[in-house]
């Protein structure tokens, strides 16, 4: 931290200034001139929170995607299908047992298993053949999408989250002061806050797993040099299966979490695949911290676009992607890895 400040004094000041302005924007009561420029404070704070929570959801999906790519160089274009499959399975379980958490757990396990099966039965057979693997994942995603449409039809499904997660919480943030002198506090859906904290928890767990455990060390070693890892006596195939399982399981987990925040319907698979692709392109392929930064950026961009210029909001997301590709093609946190 200190070294960073000493080396990049200018940037440290800019970042600090930015943080102060942001905090002021969140906690201060806005003066009239600011409201005239930006609109009401309620809109701004809610949009900020929405961006953070949506970013959390995107991170849950994209972290698995980037993990799989980092280790296996396999662009798994069936990742969106894993998301949707997890959502449907979670819904069925939650609907029959009445327990939302059980649905969440089983979605993670079942989708993780299906990911492991995919790795052992399909991708292992075309090891090192990136293009073929990618094409196969496209085929799988199309087949799975049609199967899911046949089983669960095109109807929109929505989870019933536990009661204590439903409804809105009052935040200690004043929106405006009424003429009577009462402060109006900002309300925000509890569930969406839970999504954000779940994402932070998953991110922290992933970081600990990758940095503090032996298996995590093997995975990081595999990302850097696969051949050396197997030469030093590690069963690389087992590591691959494990990583594929975790990556797919996270997508299934995100399916239930996201399906509860929004809804489940056909077409969601492609939407989240696209979101994950943009997130990892911005954040850097193969980097978990990159996925976190990319997810936050994209989530915020999408929400601010939607709130302030809804018609052209989508453009902002792609604009970020274009700028990153032009200035830093390997992504914000991406290392310019070369093929071993």
């Amino acid at each position: 931290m200190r070294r960073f400040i000493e080396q990049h004094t200018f940037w440290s000041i800019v970042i600090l200034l930015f943080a102060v302005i942001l905090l002021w924007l969140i906690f201060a009561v806005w003066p009239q001139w600011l409201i005239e420029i930006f609109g009401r404070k309620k809109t701004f704070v809610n949009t900020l929170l929405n961006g953070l929570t949506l970013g959390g959801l995107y991170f849950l999906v994209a972290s698995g995607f980037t993990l799989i790519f980092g280790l296996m160089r396999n662009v798994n274009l069936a990742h969106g299908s894993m998301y949707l499959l997890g959502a449907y399975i979670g819904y069925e379980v939650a609907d029959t047992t009445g327990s939302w958490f059980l649905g969440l757990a089983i979605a993670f396990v079942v989708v993780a298993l299906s990911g492991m099966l995919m790795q052992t039965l399909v991708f292992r057979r075309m090891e090192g053949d990136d293009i073929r693997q990618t094409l196969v994942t496209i085929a799988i995603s199309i087949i799975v999408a049609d199967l899911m449409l046949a089983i669960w039809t095109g109807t929109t499904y929505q989870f019933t989250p536990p009661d204590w997660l439903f409804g809105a919480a009052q935040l200690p943030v004043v929106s405006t002061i009424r003429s009577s002198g009462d402060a109006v506090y900002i309300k925000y859906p509890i569930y969406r806050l839970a999504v954000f904290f779940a994402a932070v928890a998953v991110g922290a767990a992933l970081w600990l797993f990758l940095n503090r455990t032996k298996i995590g060390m093997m995975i990081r070693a595999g990302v850097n040099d696969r051949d050396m890892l197997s030469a030093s006596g590690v069963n690389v195939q087992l590591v691959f299966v494990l990583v594929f399982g975790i990556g797919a399981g996270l997508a299934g987990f995100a399916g239930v979490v996201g399906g509860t925040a929004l809804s489940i319907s056909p077409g969601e698979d492609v939407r989240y695949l696209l979101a994950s692709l943009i997130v990892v392109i911005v954040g850097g392929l193969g980097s978990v911290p990159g996925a976190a930064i990319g997810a936050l950026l994209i989530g915020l961009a999408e929400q601010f676009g939607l709130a302030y210029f809804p018609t052209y909001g989508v453009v902002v997301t792609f604009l970020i992607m274009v700028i990153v590709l032009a200035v830093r093609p390997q992504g914000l946190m991406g290392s310019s890895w070369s093929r071993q």
Partner: protein
Amino acid sequence: MLKILKKMSLVVALIAFSTGAMAQDTIKMGALATLEGAFAALGEDSLRGVQMALAEFGNSAGGKNIELITGSSDASPDSAIRAARKLVEQDGIQVLVGPLSGSEGLAIKDYAKTQPNVTFLNGSSAAQDTTLRESAENFFRFSTEGAQWMAGLGEYAYNEKGYRTVAVLAEDYSFPYTQVFGFLEPFCRLGGKAPLDARFWVPIGNKDYSSVIAALPDDVDAIYVALGGADAINFLTQYEQAGGDAPLIAGSITVDQSVLGSKGPTRKFVVGTPSAGPISDTWDNPNWNAFVAAYQEQFPDGFPSPSLFAHAYYINTKAALLGLEAVGGDLSDGGAALRAALSALEFDTPTGMVKLDERRNAIADIFLTEVIEGPDGNLVNKTISVTKGVSQTFGLPYEEFLKYGQVSRENPSCE
């Protein structure tokens, strides 16, 4: 090897024989609906409507068997064109029923002009200009359109509900433009306001409405919402979660069965929301009751009650079949006789008599409704009143109606 060859030649012979037979006494009919994307559930229900009409006629019309070929789109105009071209140019259909969504309808109408020997009947697409401006000679719409569907709602919101200022939230394409126009035109003529900066236009398939909800102004009496399918469900849930408390006024497909009948928690807070459209779930009429009973019997896993889409596709398919009966299934003249028969067709539907105007757009009854909780806990639309014989020009002469201008985000301006 020889055995396989033998089998294959048998199959080939069978296929050859069956296509030979088909040419004589089969009519190929295409059905085009959105079986992908945000409107997939709607597309499924619309095909149920097609099947109901076919079942009613025993899969034949004018002494010919009807062979149904379905095509799928995702609510974007180019996907609709692709599916229609496949049906027309590869499968060789002679009659097409579809598409489902507004902008698809505009695209198919233009495509129809390039295929003069094929007869196109609308599905449920309800953009105004599909028939109002530069209509195609071979495109027929026996279902009504979005502005017609709003008949009576603007007056009701102003006079009965007492709303004076509304915000607008709608998807950003031709059908919601048409609906907003149909609602706001009478509402603003009476003195209501809908400021331009309180109109929110979101893309189809948007999932996360929380920021739009946060941006909705507080100082309005109600919010007019025209979203469909999964979009409407997402909005309603998130609006409830965010603690939204402004009353809603709904577009025709926002509190339709395709939304109210979806899986998940029931959205009790929409009870009391007024809307208007071509159907009303609780209309007490023998024809409608028979239609609902047939739907429930034929599709036990469908919605609790047929949606607007099943209804629109049913009516258009039935019109096609009645037309084919009238010409004895004879399409040897490239369908000219069929189109003449369709233009003159007037028939009784589950929702009253339907006939066409000179631009081949339906004149039919429209229902003003309000959401209530039905006897078995399902949410349904209760009939408040019926406006008889609503035409596309609201009874004005054609030239005069054109002065209102094309529907758009800012028409009417309501300033």
